[in-house]
């Protein structure tokens, strides 16, 4: 596999979305790194040109929302080839996608849809992650989904599924801490227990994103958390991030905000908070090492 990409900086980065692109090119803010969705740039040569320019000054992470490693009809090979072209152009620090599926018989359903966790789906996802890693010529990171539902045909937990995927493919994991909190709330499991069960050595990146709490029509009188990436990170997610740092150590962490975009300064302030939390969480360890 290619080793042309640079090492990931162990600090927080922010999402680079098209409405901010011109401002970031012009002002060159002090960001640790930027994450892009390739789907926003592949159909936009002008934006791709600006991204290539930024990639000379900043580490870039490529996070695909369209590879669909869980589709029974196979991954979109044409799309993977297009992503590979972008990857070769910007030499990203990380390339990642989701444990989910989005395509069905040529239709793209524009969502990250749930998979049952069983032997059949594991065999499929293993084969398709292998194919993605071959197609991209590098290691792929797989992100845990935000979940609202389970499936009756699941025979293992999500974290067991992910651990086995790592073991069979050599892929790494992108642990979305907000997704762990949200899914734990929605499906009734302990988020810290989920993090405890993740294979720590496989964690290559963390995500933090905003979610919305709304009336749960499926459970009257209760709230459901909806993954929107449209607001500030909630305090319980920050608390779980601190726990994740103690469990996994400091990792490149993305502030994920995709809709109702705030100012670049707001994004950078959230990133600074993540960096400060990482420094504080790891300080006792550093002191022990020095002392």
């Amino acid at each position, binding site marked *: 596999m290619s080793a042309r990409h640079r090492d990931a900086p162990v600090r927080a980065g922010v999402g680079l979305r098209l409405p901010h692109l011109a401002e970031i090119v012009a002002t060159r803010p002090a960001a640790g790194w930027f994450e892009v969705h390739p*789907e*926003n740039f*592949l*159909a*936009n*040569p*002008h*934006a791709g*040109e600006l991204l290539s320019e930024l990639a000379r000054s900043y580490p870039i992470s490529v996070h*695909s*929302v*369209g*590879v*669909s490693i869980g*589709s*029974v009809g196979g991954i*979109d090979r*044409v*799309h993977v080839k*297009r992503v590979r072209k972008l990857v070769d152009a910007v030499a990203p620090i990380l390339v990642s996608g989701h444990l989910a*599926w*989005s*395509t*069905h*018989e*040529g*239709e*793209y*359903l*524009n*969502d990250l*849809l*749930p*998979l*049952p966790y069983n032997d*059949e*789906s594991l065999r*499929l996802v293993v084969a398709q992650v292998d194919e993605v890693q071959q197609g991209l010529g590098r290691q792929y990171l797989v992100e845990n989904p935000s*979940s*609202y*539902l*389970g*499936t*009756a*045909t699941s025979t293992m937990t999500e974290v067991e599924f992910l651990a086995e995927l790592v073991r069979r493919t050599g892929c790494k994991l992108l642990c979305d801490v907000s997704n762990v909190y949200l899914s734990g709330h*929605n*499906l009734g499991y302990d988020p810290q227990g989920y993090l405890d069960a993740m294979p720590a050595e496989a964690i290559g990146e963390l995500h933090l994103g905003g979610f919305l709490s709304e009336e*749960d*029509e*499926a*459970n*009257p009188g209760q709230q*459901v958390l*909806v993954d929107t990436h449209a607001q500030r990170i909630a305090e319980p997610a920050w608390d779980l991030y601190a726990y994740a740092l103690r469990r996994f150590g400091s990792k490149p962490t993305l502030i994920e905000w995709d809709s109702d975009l705030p100012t670049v300064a707001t994004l950078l302030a959230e990133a600074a908070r993540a960096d400060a939390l990482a420094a504080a969480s790891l300080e006792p360890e550093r002191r022990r090492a020095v002392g």
Partner: protein
Amino acid sequence: MRLAEFQARVRGAIIDGNVAPLAPLLTGSRDPRKRFAIHQRHYETSLVRTLVGKFPAMEWLAGSPFLTAVASDFIRQSPPRAPCIAEYGEDFPAFVGSRAEANRLPWLRWVGELEWRLGHASLAIEHAPLSIEGLAEIAPERLAGCSTNLQPGLHYLAAPWPVDELLKLFLAGDAPERYALDAEDVFLELRGNRGAFSMTRLEAADFAFRSALARGETIGSAAEQALDADPTFNPGQALVQLIAAGLATAIHDSGEE
């Protein structure tokens, strides 16, 4: 239950709204069908918002409730076929035009066709243009069999309404209270580069010539179509004008050994 059947049922629940066959396969709340509505809502709102956002002039002219309702139908009849949602919606203007409610706005489809092309033109990056010296390298008797590459940001649109005028009003943001629009064939050349774009009206023969070249046809074939539109058309002069304007980037002699 095999995974293929599960995914087919999820697809049916999202696109067709038929959740009943899926519901027994879901867990995680007292009424999983209502939880699944989060996925249905995401498909609807994300795609409708994206589609309507691509056609701001159509929305301005026809109103948000109308365009949103048509977009909601469109995403079920013609779901995206690829993950780059920026490439989704080319057929939306024709779909809008096919609706009975659009009969009172016969020009609306053509405003959308123009917006779609301008949206794509402005994302392009121009290449180094072909020079007159590059053209001179081709022997004159071989020119008719040659084809050209045009700038990636060039698009051509023939419309039965002067929709370029409507778009200019929209962009200027100072539309009059009343505006009379009469049917008229217009032949538009749209040129975009790095976020900027321009619109130029062409004569019918120039349009036939340039749009044929843009489709990859030979210079000879493009000239024939232009001469059909105007017997006084001068292909040599038109080719020189095309190159002088920086619109061509390469010329290929398909018969060259």
